[in-house]
């Protein structure tokens, strides 16, 4: 052991005075290169179980907590300013693999198909208990009004370790959770019966423990959809049930009153096997297995103007579009989009529809040229696989896994990184 003060002295004279031989810097011969090549160690960076983990990305308005990121709202460091908008996709850390997600008005629900006790997480606005009762840590009798991080939502399941949550859906102030064996759970605002239970006068919805369970349907429910203040249920047999606010006819039951019990829809979809239902604002669309499309509800923005001049349609009507067999349809606040079997995207309605600034409204579906989604001589087999709508923006997912968005860019909802509206599909 060398004593401390002497240790440095044993290093020898400083480098400037040393007369060691430097290695030659000229080009080495091929043999030396090959020897160095073979002698080099091989590194392995890819692990054995290198499977891609499914990820959740969030973007948009952050102050309501709907993104699940507390740091833009309340920065953990004092000098950081709160960020109102998250303009580009940001990865959200989740404990489980998320299979279904839904965005409501200021709140979000995430669910996973796990058999663990916690299957659904919620974040965002909770003023109407749309995320259930979130017990406040400071005062155990009160609940949180804003939830900033994904928090588990306790569900009154009979068999919590066997039932799986298949899908979640969010409306303006209510949410629906679909399970595989225990029916549909609804929570949140019920002032129009959208939760499927009787309307109670002067009920306070905030900090409420009430989660209603709906089991009385003819066959198993396979899809739940929330409109702004109404709910739609699609069963395995192809029938559609509705409840909630009906002043625009969005319940499709033939009247303009509210319904507090899920009731079957008739009209043009009576007897038709419906494979997909969609709604967002006050208009609803349903797609049958033969590729026909039916609509009802609000038509103030020419969504249903191809069949009727009235602005409210309270019975499902067949929309005679000659655009081919329709695979999927989505409703937005003012515009609708349909996807055909060939992978073409058709838009109609009002707003920024995606065909440049000149197309503001149309009653007849117009096709968006597939070259905007990346189709070219170079990549001839790009097709759009899914379409979705927001209030005034649209999103399309191609079979190569690319996401295209267009529409009005309210508070960064498009996720493009710019604050301007997007008049044609833009890759995110």
């Amino acid at each position, binding site marked *: 052991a060398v004593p401390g003060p002497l240790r440095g002295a044993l290093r020898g004279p400083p480098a400037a005075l040393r007369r060691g031989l430097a290695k030659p810097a000229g080009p080495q011969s091929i043999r030396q*290169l090959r020897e*160095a*090549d073979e002698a*080099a*160690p*091989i*590194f*392995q*960076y*890819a692990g054995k179980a*290198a499977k891609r983990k499914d990820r959740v990305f969030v973007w948009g308005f952050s102050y309501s907590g709907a993104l699940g990121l507390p740091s833009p709202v309340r920065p953990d460091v004092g000098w950081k300013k709160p960020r109102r908008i998250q303009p580009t996709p940001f990865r959200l850390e989740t404990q489980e693999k998320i299979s279904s997600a839904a965005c409501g008005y200021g709140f979000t629900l995430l669910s996973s198909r796990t058999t663990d006790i916690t299957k659904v997480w919620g974040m965002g606005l909770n003023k109407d208990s749309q995320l259930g009762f979130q017990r406040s840590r400071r005062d155990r009798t009160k609940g949180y009004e804003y939830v900033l991080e994904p928090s588990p939502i306790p569900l009154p399941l009979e068999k919590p370790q066997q039932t799986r949550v298949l899908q979640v859906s969010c409306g303006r102030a209510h949410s629906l959770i679909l399970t595989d064996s225990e029916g549909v759970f609804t929570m949140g605002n019920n002032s129009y019966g959208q939760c499927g239970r009787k309307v109670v006068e002067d009920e306070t919805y905030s900090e409420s423990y009430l989660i209603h369970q709906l089991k009385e349907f003819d066959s198993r429910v396979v899809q739940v959809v929330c409109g702004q203040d109404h709910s739609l249920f699609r069963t395995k047999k192809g029938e559609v049930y509705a409840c909630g606010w009906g002043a625009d006819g969005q319940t499709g039951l033939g009247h303009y009153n509210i319904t507090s019990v899920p009731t079957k829809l008739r009209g043009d979809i009576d007897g038709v096997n419906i494979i997909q239902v969609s709604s967002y604002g006050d208009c609803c669309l349903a797609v049958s297995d033969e590729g026909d499309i039916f609509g009802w509800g609000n038509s103030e923005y020419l969504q249903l103007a191809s069949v009727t001049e009235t602005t409210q349609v309270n019975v499902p009507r067949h929309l005679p579009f000659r655009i081919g067999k329709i695979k999927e349809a989505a409703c937005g606040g003012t515009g609708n989009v349909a996807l055909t079997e060939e992978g073409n995207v058709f838009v109609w309605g009002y707003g920024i529809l995606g*065909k*440049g*600034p*000149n197309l503001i409204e149309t009653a007849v579906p117009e096709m968006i*040229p597939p*070259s*905007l989604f*990346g189709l*070219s001589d*170079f*990549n001839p087999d790009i097709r759009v696989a899914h379409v979705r709508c927001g209030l005034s923006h649209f999103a399309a997912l191609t079979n*190569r*896994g*690319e996401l295209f968005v267009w529409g009005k860019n309210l508070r960064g909802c498009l996720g493009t990184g710019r604050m*301007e*509206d*997007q*008049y*044609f599909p*833009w*890759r995110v």
Partner: protein
Amino acid sequence: LNAAPGRAPRQHVRFLPAPAGADGKETGLVATTVPVLADHPLVRGPRFRRLKIGAGHRLDVKASGVFVLGIGHGNKLLTDLYNCHLTKVYTVGGLFGKATDDFSDTGKLVEKTTFDHITREKLERILAVIQGTNHKALLMHSNIDMKTQEAYELAVKGLIRPMGKSPPIITAIRCLQFTLPQFQLEIHCLHETQQYLRKIVHEIGLELKSSAVCTQVRRIRDGVFTLDDALLRTQWDLQSIRNAIWNCQLKVKTELEKTLG
């Protein structure tokens, strides 16, 4: 070139005394066209003493392929072609498993890695990501206002591209061959250098949790000039060059008119 028959000598009108008449009395002036003495080859000397040759887009020493040169008046056409900002197409060959300091296989070895986990599907996924980000850069640098109808129409036709200075942008990339450890890509790009393409190969290797070096860069198209128009080393003689220039003239003219109006 100098031996070829040149332009016919210019003619001009001189007033010369008329040839003497029968009795030598007429001395009027007659207008005749005579060749200008200054155009006589013995006075003028060889027609071409120097040739102005300019080069198009750069091609560095380790790369190969189409290299465009302009002669004389062609230099002005070269500037116009540069302002058209047309894409170039390269075939880039790569090798997985090695990383070197200058991204090519002749450089100093930095690291060796495994590559058995790489599949064609993973490579295509990375290429799709590269194409997506570069497509966004293409739209951003083109300086067109996205909110106009003409921007929409250009986007539908796929004609949006930057018409000024911009960083290197890849407009299209796809995998031609994939046999581990080698692979070959076809890259369409703008404003790039060959070293940038080698760096892209290196970054693809890093993204796939391995490493890659570039073995070959070959330009197969430069704007309107393709491999078929290019002259081989054995064809560098006057006749072939003249034929090549003659064949390309129409193509270049139409392209310039289409882009620059």
